Structure formats: C-alpha cells, structure tokens
C-alpha cells in the first residue's frame, strides 16, 4: 500500500435512515409517529447529514508471522487475540480502517445537550453513530474493489479493538498506523478516540481471482 495510509477526506454516503430509526428504538410493528413528529425528526436528520463530515483512512500491512493467538505484522506490531488470529488464519495481509464523523456534529450534540435540547441531541448522536459505521462499510467496499483487481479479497468479517478478546489498548496501534491525528482524531490515555464517533477496524486480505466457466 505504499508508504502510508490512503486518506479519504470526503466519504459521502446516503444516510441510513431506517438504521437510525432502529437505533433509536423504532419498531415497524409497534411504534407510531405522527406526521408532525416525523417531519420534525426528518428535518433534524437532514441537518445532521450536513453536520457529519465523514473522513477515513486505510492501510494494508503484510503479516509477518503467527504465534498462537498473536498475529505479528510486518511493522512489528503484535495483535493479540485468539478470535482475530483465527479470522486471519490464511490472510497474507491485514487491512486497517478508520473513520470519523468529525468534530462539527459532536460540537452540535454537546451544544444541544447543554442547552437542554436533548431530543435533537439524541437524533444527531444516532445519525453520527450510524454514518460512522457506514463509513467503515464504504472504506471496506472501496478497498475490496481495489484488491479484487489484484486477485485478492477481503474477509467478510472485521474486528475492532475493545470488542471480543482484542483489547482496547490495540486502538493505539490502529490510531498510529492510520495516522488518525491527521483526520482530527485524538486518542485519550484510556484508548478512547475523540471525537467519540470515530471507529477503527481490522479485516484480513486473502484469496485469488479466477475466471469462471
């Protein structure tokens, strides 16, 4: 992947409105919303879309070796997780991905929370969360298409630091390799990414391409 990560300065995706509604507890079978309430919610979702500034970065790193539950990367980084090691079992490389919704929407959420406009804050928060997740999907799809042309494929699953048995301290490796500081993201001493709607993930790269029939 060259000498550094690929940066995506303007990831633009359609807002996943059904996912946002679901995150807020909407259930198709039971939840009732009046036309006025829906119009009000949709207006805020519209505003949220203009506040979210999705950016991301991606980096391919070759795997140097494996020792039990440790995957050792060419960079010298060691990822310790039995589940991750299993997923990367036949992967010759890993893909690091990171995405952030940016600072603007978080500032707006904080402003709404402190001015007691919490109903708007929860909508903005839900939009930021869903769109950050979708940004990772976008990066994954883009990198998958790039890799496919070279005869490789991405694992369908991905791992994030702090989930399963992949400790949160691995966030530091992801943060530094992805140079997320250049996306305006900060890593706290307790390995939390700030702005809080920022995520990282690891996928494996393997496989081959052939013609059918």
């Amino acid at each position, binding site marked *: 992947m060259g000498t550094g990560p690929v940066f*995506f300065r303007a990831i633009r995706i359609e807002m996943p409105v059904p996912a946002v509604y679901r995150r807020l507890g909407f259930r198709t079978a039971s939840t009732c919303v009046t036309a*006025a309430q829906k119009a009000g919610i949709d207006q805020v979702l519209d505003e949220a879309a203009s506040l979210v500034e999705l950016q991301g970065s991606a980096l391919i790193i070759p795997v140097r070796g494996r020792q039990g539950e440790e995957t050792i990367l060419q960079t010298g980084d060691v990822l310790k997780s039995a589940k991750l090691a299993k997923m990367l079992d036949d992967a010759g490389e890993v893909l690091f991905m990171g995405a952030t919704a940016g600072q603007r929407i978080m500032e707006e959420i904080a402003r709404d929370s402190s001015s*007691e406009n919490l109903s708007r804050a929860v909508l903005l928060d839900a939009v930021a969360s869903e769109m950050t997740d979708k940004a990772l999907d976008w990066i994954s799809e883009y990198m998958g298409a790039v890799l*496919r042309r070279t005869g490789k494929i991405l694992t369908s699953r991905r791992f994030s630091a702090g989930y399963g048995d992949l400790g949160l301290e691995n966030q530091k490796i992801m943060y530094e390799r992805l140079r997320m500081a250049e996306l305006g993201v900060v890593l706290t001493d307790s390995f939390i990414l700030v702005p809080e709607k920022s995520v990282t993930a690891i996928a494996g790269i393997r496989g*081959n*391409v052939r013609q059918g029939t």
Partner: protein
Amino acid sequence: MKDRDGIRSRLASGLFILDGAAGTQLQARGMPSGACPELWCLENPEAVKAVHRDYLQAGADVVYTCTFGGNRFKLSEYGGANAFEVNRDLAILARQAVGDACLVAGDIGPTGRFIEPFGDIPFEEAVAAFKEQVRGLLEGGVDLFAIETMVDIQEARAALIAVRELTSAFTIVTMTFESSGRTLNGTDPLSALVTLQSLGADAVGCNCSTGPEEMIPLIRAMAPYARVPLVVKPNAGLPALVDGETVFPMSPDAFSGFGREFVSLGVNFLGGCCGTTPAHIRDLKEKTRGVPVKERGYAVSGTLSSSRKTVLLRQGGPLLIIGERINPTGKKDLQAELAQGRMALVKRFAQEQVRNGADLLDVNAGMPGIDEVGTLKEMVKVLSVSSDAPLCIDSPIPEAIEAALRIYPGRALINSISGEEGKLDKLLELASRYGAMFILLPLTGRKLPRKAHERQAIVEEVYERASRYGFTKDDIVVDALTMAVSADGSAALETLAATRWCAEVFGARTVLGLSNVSFGLPERKWINAAFLAMASAGGLTLAIANPMNEEFMHVKRASDVLLNRDPEARAYIAHVGKQQEGIVTQKGSSAQAVGQAATPLERVYGAVLDGSRGEIADLIEQALSGGVPCQKIIDEGMIPAIKEVGTRYEKKIYFLPQLIASAEAMKSGFEILEPLLKQEGGISARKGRVVLATVQGDIHDIGKNIVSLMLKNNGFDVIDLGKDVPHEDIVAAALRHKPHIIGLSALMTTTMVRMKEVVEEVRKRGITCPVLIGGAVVTKAFADTIGAHYARDGVEAVKIAQSLVEGARAIS
C-alpha cells in the same frame, strides 16, 4: 485512421471493439498473485505480447497497454520504478505485439488515492503524476488514451487534464459505477458525462465493477445528453465467491449477447473488463458484426454539474434559482471568517440556500484585504464536498476564475464574461479549456447600453467571438442587465425586452439578478416579485436571488404553475402542502391525542404526550386563565401524561425521540409552574436527590443526560457531575450533597470496571446510599457483582429510583 480525426471519422460508420481483461490473462501465464503487473510484464515481455496478440486475433480494434498501475503512487508500492520508462517500454511492447493491425491505447488507471478535495493528494501532484505516464506512453507510440476504472471524478479530471495539456490524442474516459448506479464516491453517470465531455474527453462511459446488464441503465442515463461517443467495458458478470476464490461466471456467449443492445443504445466502443477473455471478445465481435451504428442525436440542453448532481437548463422548465448569499459584500460575519480562512459560514449558507430551493450556488470571494484567488479556490473546494449544487464562479479576476475552474470537480458556470476587450479572449480561452458555461454580460466597458437593442448587438458580438472557441448557444446564458427603475423608469421594460429577444429570437438561455430593479425604492420585495413574474413570462431561465426570501420563492413557484412549467402543479402543491401540514398538524396534535372536545387540562396532557414543547407554555397559560390551579395542572395533566409516555415507550409504541420530546415538554411546563407554585405557598415535593456522573475515562454522556432529564421531570433533584469524572470527585459530591442515590454511567467494557471502584470507595467512606448504574454494555449481572442496582434506560431508572427512595423512607 490513428489520429483523433481518423478515429472520429471511423466512428461515424463503425464500432470499435476493445480488448478484455489483462490481469487474469497474465496470471494464466504465470504472473504470481501480489506481483506488480507492470514490472512483471517488463520482466516477461513475451507473456504480455502474447496477451495483446490474443486479443488482436480475437478481433479487438484497440488493445490497452499494460500500464493500468503505471503511475508513481502505485509503482512506489513495489519499490518505485521510473514511471516514464515503465510506460514507454510497455507501450513499445504493445506496439511490437500488434504492429499496425490495431490501435494501441495508453491505459491510465487510478492512483489508489483520492485527490483533493476528496482526499489528500494535491490536485497538481496528481496531474504531474499522470503526465509522467502520458509522456512515457507518447514516447512509446500509443495512438490514443484510455483513462479507466475511475471512482473519483476529480482523479478522472486530473488524468484528462494531464493528457490534454500534453497532446490532442483521442481520449476515452470510463468510470466505475456500483450496482447503486453511482461511483463509490457518489458520482452519477450523467454528472460524469457532463463533466468529462465538457473537459475534452472524446468518449465517455463505464467499465468494471458490474456485468453488462447493470451497465444498460448507466448508458441509458448518459445517451440523451452525450455529445461524444459512448464506451462500455463490463466485467464477465457480478463476482461470486466460490471455494474462497472470486469467480466471474459469465460465459462468452452470455456476455456477448448484450452487444447488440449496447449498439442499439448508441454505444460505439465495446470491450470487456475483469473476468473476460479473448473468447469473450471474439464472441462480442461476431455478434456485433454488421450491426449498424446508431445515429444518436442528443437533447439540446445547457448542463451544469457538481460531482454528484447535474442541473439541466431546460428552456420551458421551471425557473432555476442561483443562490446569491455566498458573497462577502455587506456581510461582516462572512468577511471576518474568510479573512481568517474559515469556511463554516460558507458551508452554512450553501446548505440553507439549497434547503430553501436554490438549484445552483453563486460563489464570490471579492473583498478587500484577502487573497481572492486562494480564497475562491478554497471556497470551491469546501463547497464541492459539502454541497451537491453545481457552482457559479463569480469573480472579475481571470486568475481567480482559472484557479476555481481547475479545482472544481464538475462543470461550472462562470459569472460572467462581458464584451470588455482585454479580458474577453482570456476568459473565453479559460472557459473553453475547462469546458465551463458562462454568463454573457452585454457590456463593453464603454457606454452603458440603456436600450434593449444596444444590448442585443453586444450579445451577438460576444457570441460571435465565443463561437470561435467552440461555444454554442447551449453553452451560454445571457444576462440582459437589470437596472434600477428608480433611476430610469423604463429600465425594467428594456430588460424584459432584451430577455424576451434572447429567449425567443436569439435562442439562448437567460439570467437576471432581479433585485437590482428595486434599488433605491421602499418595500423592495413587491417590485422584485412583480419583476420576477414578468421576466418569467418573458422566457427567463435562471434568477440570481436569495432563496431565503419567502415571498420571492412563492412567486417563483406560482409563476412556474401559471406558465405551465410545473406539470400538474406538482412542485407547487408539494411545497404548499408541506407548509400547511406542519401548521395543521401542530395545532391538531394535542386534540388528536385526547379527542376533539379537549378541556384546557386535557390539552396540557396532550402537549406532554405529543412532546409539543413549543405549545405547552400557551396551553398552561390557557389552563391557568381558565382557573385550573398549578398543582392540578401538574398532578392531573402533566404527571399522568409522562407516565403514559413511559408506558408507551416500554411497549415500543414510542421510541426514544418521542420519549425525550415529551420529557422536554414536561420540563418546560415545570419551569413555568414551579415559580407560581412557590408564590402560592405550595412547593412541589421533591422525591429525592441524585448525584449523577459518567465514570472516569468515559466521555459518553447522552444516556446519562436522558436519565437526568427523566429524573428531574419525576421530581428528583439531580446533581450532574458530567463525564469522565474521577471517583474522588463522585465521593466528594456524595459527601457534600448527601444524595439518596448515586447514579453512574459507562458505555465501554473498559470503563465500566470503574463503577466497581466507585462503589468500593463510596462504601469505604461510609456512604450507604444505593448506587444505580446503566450504560450500553452494563448488565444486571455486573451490577449484582458490584453491589449496585441496574436500570436499562431512563424510564426504568425513574422507576427504580422511586422504589429505592420509597423503600428507604419505609425503613426509616
């Protein structure tokens, strides 16, 4: 036949068959997975020559050089070979393989990076990198160029500009569209076509990502507006994962079966991409042999594009609005921001104007004391990312216009080009080079043309000059000049006459900056609105205006209806209907909640139930005026309503935004009633006191804020310590405030362990009140292990808090 004109004349009578996939062909000849194809081909020249020959023998009229990744960015992943030499040598190999039997296209693929403003690579760096390739390919003797598999329209532009600045060779540009119908970066086929054909691409189309069937709608979208030939190079179907390998399943027979359909849609270049083989190309050639090329006309229409949207300037269509607010003149806040290099207001003005009906955005950076060239360029970059509306570049400085046009990832409208000598040719050359449309201003820098016929003469003169640069009337918009009627009573009539002449006689689209007409008069909005209606009836296509002006936009929509530019008044009805629905529903909502015969108390209940925070003050006032005591409003109106909200939330009839809106309405009501209660000598009984915090290391607090609101609404005093709170501070607050409950929130598995520390510390200090915890990853089981209570959400938190406090009172 090899030069641009030769290829164009061949296209008039026949198709070009392009080659198929190279990667899989090279792998079949031993290229290992993960190798750099360009370098491997140079090390194995006979293999790549064999691939080219196979495609020639299959019937390809054009073979692509094996230089898809031959740019410095891609080559640096494999040690950084010299891009010029790699491209030159691979072009020579292609020529050696096919001789003069077919054309050799210099293949330019993506860098694997995104180009500013969508990525980190500076635009000029991308152009320079592509120029290295182009020079090498020219030196190697290619006949034409093929820029392909582009996801990012800006990268496609950079490559096309690189080619155009070095050669006039025939250039194909194809982009890669997903099954959604857009590129991954959001560009739709029509916007790609408009941008690229106006920038000088000789043929435009699509390749890769999907099979032939999925490309048919893409070509259908492009064909009506394509002034250039169309290209398709599909994959051999959609890829499938079989035994851990990606397989392209489409057979040559199935693949080539789409050939005739593409030709009937007007495609002139057909080939194959991933998964295709010489057999696919051979079948394609056979199946399209003798099929007559479709004579494809195109819709006459001015077109402007952003990276994600095209606006058609249709004569007879609705009046289009160019939003005028992104202009620092008279706007101190915007001036201050631009002087500091900040763009927040630029973005906000863009979003507001589009939301209020602007179709295009005028962008102007003219103010004293700043670098207008640099600032305008930055504004264009920011707007390219933050808004879908195509841009109108507004500057009198040619260098500023050039900088903006070069970086803009779409087809822009230049505001404006006049007949003023000294600038005319320079601006026409710029507009031509970057494929922009322009607003033609009938001024010469000499006498101001007061009469319509004087303006008409200047329009014809300037157009004659513009036509020497290749412009047609589809590429211009005429501004007939709006003068103030306060200075000249016949000014509006002259403008209307000139506008009508442009539309009906000259045959060009028209624009006016309408508000100038009322300068110097009071109540300008009525003059402007009347002038708008008259100009619309006279054939006006575009208006430069402030879309935030409601009266103006209402008259615009009404004019569209009256002039039959809004079929069945759909847009008008939709807009008016939306406004009325908001009003009716707001008024009706509390009645809907409780039935039509609502008492004041019932309406207060309904307002809390509906979350109508804006209404509750008035409704409480009505109830108080009607003699309902404060306490009764609370006890029989608001509290039952919020309990019902909680019940509906638990049953998932309400979801979170409704719960919060109701809680906020309740809170607004309390803020009005509590002071009145105190005056009356009644004090609403507080149920208890809660110290609330998100634990140390955790910065998430929305859930905690929701709990805080719910508790306050239900009669609790809440001391909210905020987020990332060290346990010493929580303990100190507990010692100071002596709460009935300590509430803790954490969102992460790594921070929820702090809750245990807080509980231990609190007990060590002799604080015996219960601890209530919650958060996305917190569970009852965890709460049990640390000796705390657990609440799933705000509603449950209130119930548990109430029971804890009542339980404590019962004991004491």
